[in-house]
């Protein structure tokens, strides 16, 4: 039972990582850059939802939608202000700018909302006063948050894959990620497409932030940093640029983390997660589902 419980917790945590990882992987696929600030967009999303539901008494769903809207806007603003001027710049410059953006968001949050932890109340309500369901005569109890997280992750994955593969906009996104110049010649607005990718990624980050804080209720300005880095690890793990890769990477990483916590050591779990990343990258430098691109001279 303990094994099953850990497995379900792992999949649930992994689903959150997968949703965050989608933001990283889509942006990387299309703009070939690491959006380091993505983890902090999660934090902003969680704060918006916290204030909307706790302070202004909005219903949870409205809070989530509001935080998605704010994060979408934030994502587009970040892209336009910081990343768009650096389209032609070397990768190192863009990465450092993204790190700067991440620092900016964290410190702005600290000034706006102080560093004292906020207790986030789960957006998933209770049914008959219960916070979860008990199976096998109470030997295995699963909280509703866990179930909702997994379901939301599946819904997002399916709709995103459909969107990217079946719609015209999705086709444009794939075209831009393959060859920007050629896509432009075909009449695709590259800048709009990149902005759209950031918007989708940021909206997903807001959902991830709310789910993350529903499961782990302490909210501080650095809440997003660690999950952000781990989700990025998940994206790299699964092969950055690949949407199914983000799902597989995220869920595997979540399971590894929970199992490391349960069976090896709580304090060393982060170190173990990162060690796995390094090993995977050494064996398969492009991640599990990544495509190897040979360099043109």
């Amino acid at each position, binding site marked *: 039972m303990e094994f099953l419980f850990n497995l379900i917790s792992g999949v649930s945590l992994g689903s959150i990582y997968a949703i965050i990882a989608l933001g990283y992987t889509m942006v990387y696929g299309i703009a070939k850059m690491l959006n380091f600030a993505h983890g902090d967009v999660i934090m902003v999303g969680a704060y918006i939802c916290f204030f909307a539901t706790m302070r202004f008494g909005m219903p949870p769903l409205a809070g989530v939608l509001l935080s998605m809207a704010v994060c979408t806007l934030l994502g587009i603003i970040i892209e336009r202000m910081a990343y768009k001027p650096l389209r032609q710049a070397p990768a190192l410059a863009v*990465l*450092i700018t993204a790190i700067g953006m991440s620092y900016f968001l964290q410190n702005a949050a600290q000034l706006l909302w102080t560093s004292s932890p906020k207790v986030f109340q789960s957006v998933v309500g209770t049914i008959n006063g219960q916070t979860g369901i008990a199976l096998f005569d109470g030997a295995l109890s699963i909280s509703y948050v866990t179930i909702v997280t997994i379901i939301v992750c599946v819904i997002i994955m399916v709709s995103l894959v459909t969107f990217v593969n079946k719609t015209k906009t999705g086709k444009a996104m794939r075209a831009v990620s393959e060859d920007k110049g050629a896509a432009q010649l075909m009449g695709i607005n590259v800048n709009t497409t990149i902005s759209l990718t950031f918007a989708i990624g940021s909206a997903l980050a807001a959902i991830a932030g709310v789910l993350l804080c529903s499961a782990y209720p302490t909210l501080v300005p650095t809440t997003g940093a660690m999950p952000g880095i781990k989700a990025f690890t998940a994206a790299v793990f699964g092969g950055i640029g690949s949407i199914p890769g983000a799902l597989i990477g995220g869920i595997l990483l979540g399971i590894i983390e929970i199992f490391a916590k349960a069976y090896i050591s709580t304090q*060393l779990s982060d170190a173990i997660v990162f060690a796995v990343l390094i090993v995977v990258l050494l064996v398969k430098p492009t991640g599990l589902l990544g495509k190897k691109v040979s360099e043109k001279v």
Partner: protein
Amino acid sequence: MNLKTMNKTTRSNMVTYLMVIIAFVIVQALVSSGSISSSLKGQLVPICAYIVMAVSLNLTVGVLGELSLGHAGFMSVGAFSGVVAAICFGQTIENSVAVLILAMLVGGCAAAVVGVLVGVPVLRLSGDYLAIVTLAFGEIIKGIANNLYVGMDANGLHFCMIKNTLEMTDGTMLINGPMGLTGIPRIATFAMGFALIMVCLFVIFNLVNSKSGRAIMALRDNKIAAQSVGINVTNYKLMAFVISAAMAGMAGVLFAANFSTVVASKFDINTSILVLVFVVLGGLGNMRGSIIAATVLTVLPEVLREFSEYRMLVYAIVLIVMMLATNNPTLKNAIGSFTGKFSRNAEKGEKANG
């Protein structure tokens, strides 16, 4: 032509050495005349440590052109191994300068060994992947250091991980898990910090101007072209990376020996990024810039204490603006024409005066 550029480099290096020496003499004079505040005096050794960190990271980021986000990890390795060494040597050697030098050597070697262990596999990757792996590595070091227990008694050193299972009757704990290093002999002095900066500058300047240094810079500028003329990518990358790691380790020893306790979480990603900010602001590949940036950005928060909560926010904005200003063609041209006008005006002024 070649001679002329060589002379220029040598002259520029001399200016840097001279700048450090003059700064050291002035600060020493201020300290001995007692006109420096005690909080600033406490910052002198950390400033030296940060300068060494910045200069060494500049070797990786500026000269080699690979972004490392785990530089504080090497500092951590150096600090932990160096302090344990310092305590051991301290029992037999009286002279604290000799102890510190030995501790720095141990710390530097330990960081270099870890640098090789990390570098050999990791340097096969490049760009974003390398950055993220160095970041992961820094977190791993922090995780291990946070769970390391080292004690010393009459029988020697004892190690254990995760839980404190050392059963010592009359020993002292040197590294106490999340509590970090305790009972560090505070042997670091400003003069030693100065000496370390000079040694590191000497090593880096000579490396950069050597055949190896040119090979490393060739790799940065165009890896494929460098490879095609027979430059061994892994060897030269590893060389720069390991030298950089060893210097960070020494800086870690210097930093730790200035405090009586140091926790492992001091050397986290924030420290790595702080040092990266020094390097970027000072200019990639420009050692003098790194030194100035590290000094100013460490002293500034002390001076502007009332604005300290805005400090990190300002850092972030400065980092973004710097990157946009130096890499965006439109902005770059605007700044170029502005400074162009400025220097032309200055020239005119000079002519008028002359």
